[in-house]
Each structure stands twice: as C-alpha cells, then as structure tokens.
C-alpha cells in the first residue's frame, strides 16, 4: 500500500531532477523523461490492481492527526486515465515541441504530480494545495507558445481558476471552523449536527468554486481561449485530466462530506442536472459556429463534461457508473481527436477547418482515426462513447429526469452536425499542392493507440467496467468509506 505515496513522489522527483539535468547533465535528459514515464506507468498499474480493498496510508504515521492517502475505486479510475494518457502524451510531445523542451516536461511532470496528489488525498486543505499546484503548472503549459492570444487566454484562465479557488478556500475555512478537523471522513461525521442552512451554504460555495474550474454555463468563456493557442498535447491532458480532477474533487467532497441524502434533500441534484443540460445545449450551439479546430474541440469538451455532471449528479448507482465510465471514455476520445489535430498542425500548421480540406486522402489512417474519434464522441453505436452515453440516458430516465434524457439525444444530433462539418471538409477534394512535413512514427503511434482504445472499449465495455462498477459502493453510502478511513 505504500506504493500510493510513490505515485506522487516519482513525478515530483523527476521534475526536480529534470531541472538539474537542464543545467549540468544535458545528455541524460531524453533517457530520464522516457524512463521515468515508463516507471510511472508501471507504478500506476501496480497501484490500480492492488486498489480494491482500499487501505489508508497515513503520511508520517500520524493516523487521523496528519494527512492520509487512500486509493478508492474512483481515484483508481483517475489513475487509470493518467496511465492511459501520460505515456502517449510524453511520446507525442517529444517530437511535437520544437523549442525548449526541459521546461515543457518539468511543467507536465509537476501537473501530473498535482493531479495524482489531488486524486489520492483524503484531506480537504491538501486537496486545495494540490489543485493550486496542478492549475498553476497547467497555466504554465498553456502559455508555452508565448503567442499574444495564448498569453491572453492563459491570463483569463489563471484569473478565473484563482477566483474559483477563493470560494473553495472560503468553504474549507468555514468547514474547519464548524468541524474542527480537515479529514473528510471526520468532517462528514461532525457535519451531522450542523443546521441545514449553514451546511447547504457551504455546499453552495464548494459547488460554485468547482463550477468555475469545470466551466459550467456562465463561467465557461475562459476555456476556449485557453485552448486556442496552447500546445496541442497539453490540450489532451487538460481536457482529459485537469478539468476532470475538478469534477473528481467536487464528487469526492460532496458525496463523502455531505452524503447522498443531504444532496437529495437540499435539491442540489436537480439543480446540477438542469445546469448540465443548459451547459451542453449552449456548448453544442456555440461549437457549431467555430471555425478554429481547437475552439471547436474546447466547446465539445464543455459539453461532454456537462454530460458527465448529469451522469454523476443523477444520484443513483447506475448514474455514478455511467458518469465515471463517460469520464474514462471522454478522456480517450478527446485524446485521439486532439492528437490527430496536433499531427495536422505539426505537418502543415493547420489551424482552421478549411486548412485540413482534402487531407483524408493524404493521411488515410489518421483521418480514419479522426472519424472513429468523432463518431465515438458523438455517441454512435459501435464505439465507447455510445456505451457511456446510453448508460447516462438510461440512468437519467430511471431517476426520473426525462427532460435530461431527451435533451441528451437532441445534443447528440447537434454534435453530429458540427463533427460532420469537419469530416466533410476532411474528405473533399483539394487541388492546391500542400507542402507536408512528414509526421514521424512517434506522433502517429499514440494517436492510433488511443483510437484503437476507442473501439476496444466500445466492443468490450466489461474491460473497464469491472473497475468502475465498484465506485458507487464507496460514494453512495459514505459509511464504509468513513469506516475504512477512521478505522485505518
């Protein structure tokens, strides 16, 4: 069980030693990055496989006095996403980033350390600290190209994420004031006798703070600007992990500290489902008018995360399974799409949709992966997107949110239209000769790997599902999560 700590320490140690290798040992840079990425992958797989009966790892052996780490099936799912996305990200960005490489990998290792810290900790303030680490290093990555628009978009991203963190910090301080502890399990025990109004206000602060970071409706304007001029491999990690870690922190905070019956009683479930429906409708409509590929995918990320929120906040066990499965699927699908767009950008600096006219015939495999990815994200039958979207619709119907289920189907057709727009331009004939810089294998391999994962998880959904079906046992009734954490 002490491997859980290494999941956080290893990326930190690599980031620090990369800093030193930049100065004195320039030769070992390549080996260091790849070696630690592979070691990290192996470590993650070890931690995920030994994660089922969750055990508690207390930092500094202080038990409930200090900070504890715990690998719950939900955090094991996020470690699986890190495992699936991080190595392709490293291989892809080895060749993709032309300019200084040391800082790029220092930031990416710090971001992954921040996210894995957030995912493993059971302490409220530690969650806030690691969220700040991961958001600052993701801002650093997003302004890597130093273009005017990139810096402006990142500035808005940093302002909004700090604004959201203030609300989360305010809520953390108030929970500490009311309960006297910072450990989530003890907070939920101590929250039993706080009056209803105070408890729901603190919950409102948490939801508002995390909604800014997730990009729900009124606060989503910063997301497309942050994605526009940032390096494409970073977009993969950002939409696959950074946004989702905010979703994770929200789910962990609400389900463990407040408990499912309080969420139901305070009406939060219906509010968030309604909020999700409005968000993905507007996101799909806005995505339709986009001509820039990155902005289009950014709006589609907002919509997909709205689906995830609907799935997770339906409140039933099926909803939790569907939402978590969609978290995994969306990370893979968006990863393939962004990687393919990255290769088009790398080979002929394609940014707008018109630039990729007629590429279907020059890059047959890549365009096929793009079609697979976009059909999966729209939610057509043979692919994994369909599986999770169908489970979300089923859970929404079962829990009585019929309007949500209906609007998800409407959303599917809306997203079909703008993805078809891209696919059609991909395959229309294009006379003018294109100077193409050949994309090497190290760019194609990650894309094809993630594309094939789309198909595999679509046809054999039981592969990831046997991990995901264990998630609701620790979230819905937070009793045994608390028993393990306090007993441990």
């Amino acid at each position, binding site marked *: 069980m002490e491997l859980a700590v290494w999941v956080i320490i290893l990326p930190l140690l690599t980031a620090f030693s990369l800093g030193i290798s930049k100065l004195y040992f320039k030769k070992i840079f390549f080996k260091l990055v790849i070696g630690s990425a592979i070691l990290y992958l192996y470590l993650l797989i070890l931690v995920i496989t030994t994660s089922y009966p969750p055990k508690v790892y207390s930092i500094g052996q202080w038990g409930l006095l200090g900070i504890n780490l715990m690998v719950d099936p939900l955090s094991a799912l996020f470690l699986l996403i890190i495992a699936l996305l991080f190595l392709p990200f490293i291989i892809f960005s080895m060749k993709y980033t032309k300019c200084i490489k040391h800082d790029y990998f220092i930031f990416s290792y710090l971001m992954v350390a921040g996210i894995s810290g957030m995912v493993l900790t059971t302490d409220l*303030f530690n969650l806030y*600290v690691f969220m*700040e680490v991961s958001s*600052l290093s993701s*801002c*650093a990555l997003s*302004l890597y190209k*130093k273009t*005017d*628009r990139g*810096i*402006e978009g*990142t*500035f808005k991203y*940093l*302002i909004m994420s*700090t*604004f959201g963190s*203030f609300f989360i*910090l*305010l809520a953390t*301080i108030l929970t*500490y*004031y009311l309960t006297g502890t*910072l450990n989530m399990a003890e907070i939920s025990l101590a929250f039993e006798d706080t009056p209803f109004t105070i408890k729901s206000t603190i919950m409102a602060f948490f939801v508002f703070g995390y909604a800014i970071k997730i990009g729900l409706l009124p606060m989503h304007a910063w997301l497309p600007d942050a994605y526009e001029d940032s390096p494409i491999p970073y977009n993969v990690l950002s939409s696959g992990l950074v946004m989702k870690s905010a979703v994770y922190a929200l789910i962990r905070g609400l389900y463990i500290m407040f408990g499912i019956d309080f969420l139901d009683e305070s009406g939060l479930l219906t509010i968030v489902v309604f909020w999700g429906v409005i968000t993905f409708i507007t996101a799909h409509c806005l995505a339709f008018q986009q001509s820039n590929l990155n902005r289009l995918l950014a709006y589609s990320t907002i919509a997909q995360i709205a689906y995830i929120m609907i799935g997770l906040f339906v409140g039933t066990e099926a909803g939790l399974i569907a939402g978590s499965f969609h978290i995994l699927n969306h990370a893979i699908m968006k990863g393939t799409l962004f990687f393919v767009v990255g290769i088009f950008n790398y080979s002929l600096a394609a940014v707008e949709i018109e630039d990729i006219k007629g590429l279907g015939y020059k890059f047959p495999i890549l365009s096929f992966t793009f079609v697979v990815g976009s059909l999966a994200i729209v939610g057509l039958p043979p692919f994994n997107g369909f599986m999770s979207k169908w489970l979300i619709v089923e859970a929404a119907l079962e829990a009585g949110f019929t309007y949500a289920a209906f609007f998800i189907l409407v959303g599917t057709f809306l997203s079909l239209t703008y993805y078809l727009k891209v696919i059609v331009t991909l395959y229309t004939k294009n006379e003018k000769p294109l100077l193409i810089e050949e994309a090497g294998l190290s760019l194609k391999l990650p894309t094809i790997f993630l594309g094939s994962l789309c198909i595999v998880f679509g046809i054999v959904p039981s592969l990831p599902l046997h991990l995901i079906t264990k998630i609701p046992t620790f979230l819905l009734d937070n009793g045994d999560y608390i028993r393990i954490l306090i007993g441990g």
Partner: protein
Amino acid sequence: MEIAYVAVIILFCLGMYTIITKKNLIKIVIGITIVESSLILLLMLVGYKPGGTAPILDKRYEIVVDPITQALALTTIVIGGSVTAVMLAMVIKLHKRYRTLNIDEIRKLRG
C-alpha cells in the same frame, strides 16, 4: 470581535467587485491580493481564542491560540504570493504586446 468578521466580508466583496468590474489589469491583480488577504484574516479570526497566547510553548500557558489555522495561513500566503508573481509577469507581457492595460481593448485587438 464582530467588526473583524464584518471587515472580512467587506474586503472579500470589495476584492470580488474589483475582479469583476475593473478594466485595468493591475487593478484586477490588486483585487485578487485583497481577497487573498481577507481569507488569511478570516483564518486568523477562526483560530483566535480570547485571552490566548501565541503557539510558542516555551512555558506552560493555559489558553493557546489554534496552531493549525496559522499553518494553513502560511501556506495560503506563499501560494497567493507565487500566483500573483506569475500573473504580474503575464501583465507585463500583455502590455508589451497590446500596448494597453485595458482588458476590453485587449479583447478588441485580439481579433
């Protein structure tokens, strides 16, 4: 003691107002510093016990102020300081590229 909580609320809302309405980039970063200082002040108020002494236990004291909030406040100060430094670096870069500090003009020039 109530004026302390009232001051925290006023500072928090003043900082939030500055972030939302002010057009000048540096004023927005000042607003963020104000909100952050108000949260640190709130942390100190939460941990204060009337008649308590500082948490340096060189001798036995009967009432001691809560050390946890001071550790959290130290962490928040350092985090806020480094985030402000990064923001100000971006403000300088933005000013160099767009020759203005007004956020609306930057949006117009962005194209």
